[in-house]
């Protein structure tokens, strides 16, 4: 009788529970990779087109901060690897996180693990099953990615390397999740911490890629791009992933074998017996339940801004040495650095729109967790409650992006000693807010129709990110570029801001929000 007794049964049970989710995710992930193959093969069919792509983006620090080193862009495979690596690595990692938590801590939190262990399973079995079921899905994804790339006409070895790199990062996150699942007693908190790990991985490689590379090696996501599939084919970064996985898996089982079932390393502490005045108002209460998310996102975006600011001095040199950028950016403004900051602010706004969506959709999360009836059976109007959450989301989004702009200015000042840019960058942050509001209002419209439709909002944001990435190559038809609200935001601080597009976007956002609220007023609670 070992701690692993019953792992096989637990695994079969986990596979049965996930019999719908797994195929859906696999089809989505592999289809996404196929989309890269098809669109790149279509857009960049000839070497001349690839050379043009390389010339237009290679070394562009804003693009590298978003998507990673551009050294491989001269080949079709390299271009696909470059564009697919960050998006697919992160989405696979998010899947791995949800999968491990779903079969370990979430089960424990709801006391279903007790049932399983009382029926004779070993205490390590549920976690082992969670890790195995996640690994199986990642292995299938790796096979699928490889097949899609090879069928697309790319060489087998680098295709397999790319597939293993992307899924290997997710495997590291899966085993890291297994550790965090031992730390907190709540699945939600564990997911939040792993989300921070994924975010920091992205951030460290973003900073590393624009400042010489040291930080890139501290990020597991950096290891994926450093395999350099299709432009060097280095296999040894995969070993780092195997090592990191082995260590974290071992750690998670060690922690699990030493703690009570249902407990964590961090135990919940008692809190106040009486509410402070701040939550005795509907808006104050809504802010309270959004507060942790707001602070987390603000911190993340500000750290990113600060980091970007501190490397601003180097960037200026890089930009000036490349004639392609000088031309591209000079058309916008006399100041290259301002153009660079404008496009970084767009990146931050695209990331921050993720916050806007989740904050606007907080009522949907409340609805799905069945807490709404308790609240709305009090004399609190449906519309007023949701409108309060929207208001918080809008204000927080605007302050957050402005704070990130200010952080760029402070970072720049710390290095150069000249803080005079900070107020301008702070104001330039606000210019990005209407596009974020508009994205959030689309989410609210979906919520007004039905809570079940709200995941589509994330798909829309993914499309906006894709449009931004492809638009920076200059290869998209104008009408496609125009579909994204972020394309209409004036490139402050590089250009003087014309208020019309901002007013129009804000107007549309208000209109869509009003429509969403109207539909919500008329629909049943789930």
């Amino acid at each position: 009788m070992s701690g692993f007794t019953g792992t096989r049964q637990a695994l079969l049970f986990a596979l049965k529970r996930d019999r719908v989710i797994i195929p859906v995710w696999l089809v989505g992930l592999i289809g996404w990779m196929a989309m890269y193959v098809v669109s790149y093969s279509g857009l960049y069919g000839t070497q001349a087109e690839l050379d043009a792509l390389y010339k237009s983006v290679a070394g562009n620090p804003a693009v590298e901060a978003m998507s990673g080193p551009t050294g491989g862009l001269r080949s079709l495979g390299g271009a696909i690897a470059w564009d697919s690596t960050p998006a697919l690595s992160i989405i696979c990692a998010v899947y791995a996180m949800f999968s491990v938590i779903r079969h370990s801590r979430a089960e424990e939190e709801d006391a279903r693990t007790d049932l399983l262990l009382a029926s004779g399973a070993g205490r390590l079995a549920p976690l082992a099953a969670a890790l195995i079921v996640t690994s199986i899905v990642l292995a299938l994804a790796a096979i699928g990615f490889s097949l899609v790339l090879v069928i697309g006409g790319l060489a087998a070895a680098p295709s397999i390397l790319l597939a293993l790199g992307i899924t290997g990062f997710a495997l590291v996150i899966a085993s890291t999740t297994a550790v965090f699942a031992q730390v907190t007693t709540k699945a939600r908190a564990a997911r939040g911490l792993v989300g921070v790990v994924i975010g920091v991985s992205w951030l460290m490689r973003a900073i590393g890629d624009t400042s010489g590379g040291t930080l890139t090696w501290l990020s597991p996501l950096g290891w994926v791009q450093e395999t350099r599939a299709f432009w060097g084919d280095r296999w040894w970064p995969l070993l780092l992933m195997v090592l990191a996985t082995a260590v974290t898996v071992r750690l998670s089982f060690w922690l699990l074998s030493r703690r009570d079932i249902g407990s964590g390393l961090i135990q919940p502490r008692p809190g106040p017996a009486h509410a402070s005045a701040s939550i005795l108002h509907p808006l104050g209460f809504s802010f309270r339940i959004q507060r942790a998310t707001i602070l987390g996102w603000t911190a993340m975006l500000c750290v990113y801004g600060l980091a970007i600011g501190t490397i601003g001095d180097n960037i200026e040199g890089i930009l000036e040495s490349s004639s392609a950028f000088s031309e591209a950016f000079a058309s916008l403004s006399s100041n290259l650095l301002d153009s660079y900051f404008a496009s970084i602010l767009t990146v931050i706004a695209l990331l921050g729109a993720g916050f806007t969506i989740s904050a606007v959709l907080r009522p949907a999360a409340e609805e799905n967790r069945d807490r709404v009836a308790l609240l709305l059976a009090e004399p609190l109007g449906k519309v007023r409650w949701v409108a309060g959450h929207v208001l918080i989301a809008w204000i927080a989004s605007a302050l957050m992006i402005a704070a990130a702009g200010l952080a760029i200015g402070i970072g720049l000042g710390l290095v150069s000693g000249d803080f005079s840019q900070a107020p301008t960058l702070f104001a330039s942050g606000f210019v990005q807010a209407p596009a974020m509001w508009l994205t959030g209002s689309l989410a609210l419209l979906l919520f007004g129709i039905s809570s079940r439709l709200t995941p589509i909002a994330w798909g829309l944001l993914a499309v906006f990110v894709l449009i931004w990435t492809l638009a920076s190559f200059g290869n998209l038809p104008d009408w496609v570029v125009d579909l994204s609200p972020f394309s209409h935001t004036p490139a402050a601080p590089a250009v003087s801001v014309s208020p019309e597009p901002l007013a129009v976007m804000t107007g549309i956002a208000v209109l869509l929000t009003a429509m969403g609220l109207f539909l919500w007023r008329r629909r049943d609670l789930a």
Partner: protein
Amino acid sequence: MSAVIEVSGLVKNFGQTRALDGLDLKVEKGQVHGFLGPNGSGKSTTIRILLGLIRASGGEALLFGEDPWRNAVGLHRRLAYVPGDVNLWPNLTGGETIDMLGSLRGGLDPKRKQELVERFELDLTKKAAAYSKGNRQKVALIAALATDAELFIFDEPTSGLDPLKEAVFQDCVREIIGRGDTILLSSHILRQLEHLADTFTIIRRGATVETGTLHDLRQIARSAGRDPDSMSLEDLFLSIYRQ
């Protein structure tokens, strides 16, 4: 007497399924009205319509003579609700949750709240995530009982409560009635209902099967050829369902 709740021919469709199919329910002021039916018969759906959380597909539901869908906020000032499965905000303590819910109707009487906390023996300083089922139920019960509502809608309010707290709840029900207020009580604990309720409505598959006092229900059972006087509510309920 005036009807606090007046429901007639209520219909609710969820897509293809018909959850309520012409349900009738009448609750007079000052009554405890027992609302009975097997799982899935439409009790909670009826209550959600009465709260204005979902909209009736047909028929009429009136609270204090008003449409709860149209005037939810106004009516909610006059009622308090306890669901059978209380989900709370995991990061808030029980004390914070009660105060927050109370603030939405302008605040609770602190003395009354404190008295209820002591009677139900609830630890206000625990985070909701750490509460057992019974303790989550107590949070919603205290938040509702400390109000000065005229109508209390209880949907399986005591699920997970121990027998001592169950008795406390029954005392609270008597105090509400002593004040002249009204209760709609949906419960599967038929012994509890038999002691507390004045009138009953028994539903099946979204429609009312029987309604009346215990005496009325016994008359119905008599016509079915059984000796009713010795029958408990539980016997009556089972005999009506087995017909």
